[in-house]
């Protein structure tokens, strides 16, 4: 009797053991993949077996071998090395866009929500106008006007994603500023600036982070499309979007490895980011109930 009771009890964890949060397995997989991609980008010089730009015209479109685990491209460059290096430009672009749109969007959203009245009306009107512009189109326009490369598309996409952040921040601000603790702070003589900086923003941070994570996946695809079109990252640099476009020429000739490998990286990265973002925003909205 005693032994069976003991058996049903969960073992008591010692205090020093780290608490592992209970997450859906899919989220765990996504976290692992995202962490892996980030590590890959950071450690590219160490991880890549070859120089991603070293041309070897004697072995173009070679199949997998010990020296080239994924084979080579048209110019005999090592595909694995190019994929690993490609993680850098493929992730840095979206990161820059998300950071810029989050910081500026936060400021705009808080301003509109906090000030209310005419400021809110004008700001929300401008945001609605910005919503009407398709982001990719704006980025293509910017790239063709200010020259190819990542800079113009990054600025254009930052502007395109800013309204998404600003709108959700504005909504959260409207709710948060009516909370009783805000009145209590006002009686204490806390200035509006301090109330926003120290109290409002920490409270709306979860919504902000979730929205930014959702944006990341979208921007990843947008920037890849721009590089695919030849307006973003330029050859001979390694970039997944560029690799898809370079690889499509050889699909018909029976060497689809490059296009497939780069596309695969995209699918894996975007799906992982979206699963994480979904889970984050579910948690955020769940907590408010």
């Amino acid at each position, binding site marked *: 009797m005693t032994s069976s009771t003991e058996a049903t009890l969960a073992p008591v964890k010692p205090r020093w053991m780290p608490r592992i949060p209970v997450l859906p397995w899919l989220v765990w997989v996504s976290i692992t993949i995202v962490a892996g991609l980030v590590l890959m980008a950071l450690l590219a010089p160490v991880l890549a077996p070859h120089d991603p730009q070293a041309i070897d015209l004697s072995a173009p479109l070679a199949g997998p071998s010990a020296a080239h685990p994924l084979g080579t491209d048209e110019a005999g460059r090592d595909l694995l090395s190019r994929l690993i290096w490609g993680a850098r430009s493929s992730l840095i672009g979206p990161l820059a866009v998300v950071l810029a749109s989050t910081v500026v969007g936060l400021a705009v959203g808080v301003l509109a929500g906090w000030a209310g009245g005419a400021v809110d009306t004008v700001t929300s009107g401008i945001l609605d106008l910005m919503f009407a512009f398709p982001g990719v189109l704006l980025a293509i326009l910017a790239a063709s006007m200010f020259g190819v490369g990542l800079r113009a598309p990054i600025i254009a996409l930052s502007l395109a994603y800013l309204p998404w952040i600003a709108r959700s921040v504005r909504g959260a601000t409207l709710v948060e500023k009516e909370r009783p*603790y805000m009145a209590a*702070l*006002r009686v*204490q*003589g806390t200035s509006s600036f301090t109330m926003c900086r*120290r*109290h409002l923003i*920490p*409270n709306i941070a979860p919504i902000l982070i979730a929205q930014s994570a959702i944006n990341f996946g979208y921007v990843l695809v947008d920037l890849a499309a721009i590089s695919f079109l030849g307006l973003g990252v330029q050859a001979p640099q390694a970039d997944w979007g560029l690799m898809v476009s370079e690889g499509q020429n050889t699909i018909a000739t029976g060497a689809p490895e490059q296009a497939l490998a780069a596309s695969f990286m995209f699918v894996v990265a975007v799906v992982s980011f979206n699963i994480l973002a979904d889970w984050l925003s579910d948690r955020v909205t769940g907590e408010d109930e």
Partner: protein
Amino acid sequence: MSAPLLDVRSLAVELPVRRELRPVLADVSIAVDAGEMVGLVGESGSGKSMTARAIAGLLPPGARVSGEIGFDGRSLTELDRDAVRRLRVSDIAMVFQDPRAHINPVRRIGDYLCESLRINLHVGRRDATELACDLLQRVGLPDPTRRLSQYPYELSGGMLQRVMIAAALAVKPRLLLADEPTTALDVTVQAEILAILDQMRREDGLGMLFITHDLELAAAVCDRICVMYAGRIVEEQPAARLYARPRHPYTQALMQSRPQLEGPAHDLHAIPGVPISAYEAPPGCPFRPRCPYAQEVCERWEPHIEPGPTRVACVRVDELDPAASASIPGLTGG
């Protein structure tokens, strides 16, 4: 006679509801002296909290205020906005009903207390921490250094209310607006919180406006009590006298609605009808529809408080009084 610390005269507030101004307070006059605790009693929606919010400058945008809010001989309605804000911040503090809703949940207790100290007393980080510890000790919170590094969810409601009182005390205010400070708490914790407030009043000469719906509690701790109904003060008396001999029919009805601990148990007396807000008040006396003594004269009478030692807003108070007070059993002792 010197002017009282807080001197509210004929305060009326209207709030915009769907583009229409609705009255929420009418002809409210209250005075609080230094070291005095004045009770403001009434049902939900009677305008108690709105009175405190008007004094603290927390009315929603678009509110229209008339009348006079005097503080320490100065008018809060006439001074320019900055001066009013400074005065309110340095001299008037407020304690709210639900401490959990009124303290930012994502910041530590120490951040909350120190921030207020650093803004208002212009002290450095280390001094602020020390002061915060002292304050927590004053409100009887054990282990203050540990509390400073905890988050609000780690503290009980009673502890949080002490934290909020500590934050209110931080600015060394002269007037404390206590908006149902003990309603969300256990009865035992309630007694402790009240003891702290009473100590502050005696030691620092703090004037206090104590808002509650608990008439017996107010009678036990306050010097004077104002009873509110539908955005108006209907009766004001010294606490003991109000408890022993309520004169307005509404106050009397409230007293009769209490459960009695002594004597045989009987059904609770309830006031017929439902409480109304100021904007729903009919012409004449607002309590008229529920008042057992209402007559034709009450319809035409413009409600106001008669000047005099007992201030009652009832046109029939003098003819009703003897019979009315005799009809309340067990109240002769006080």
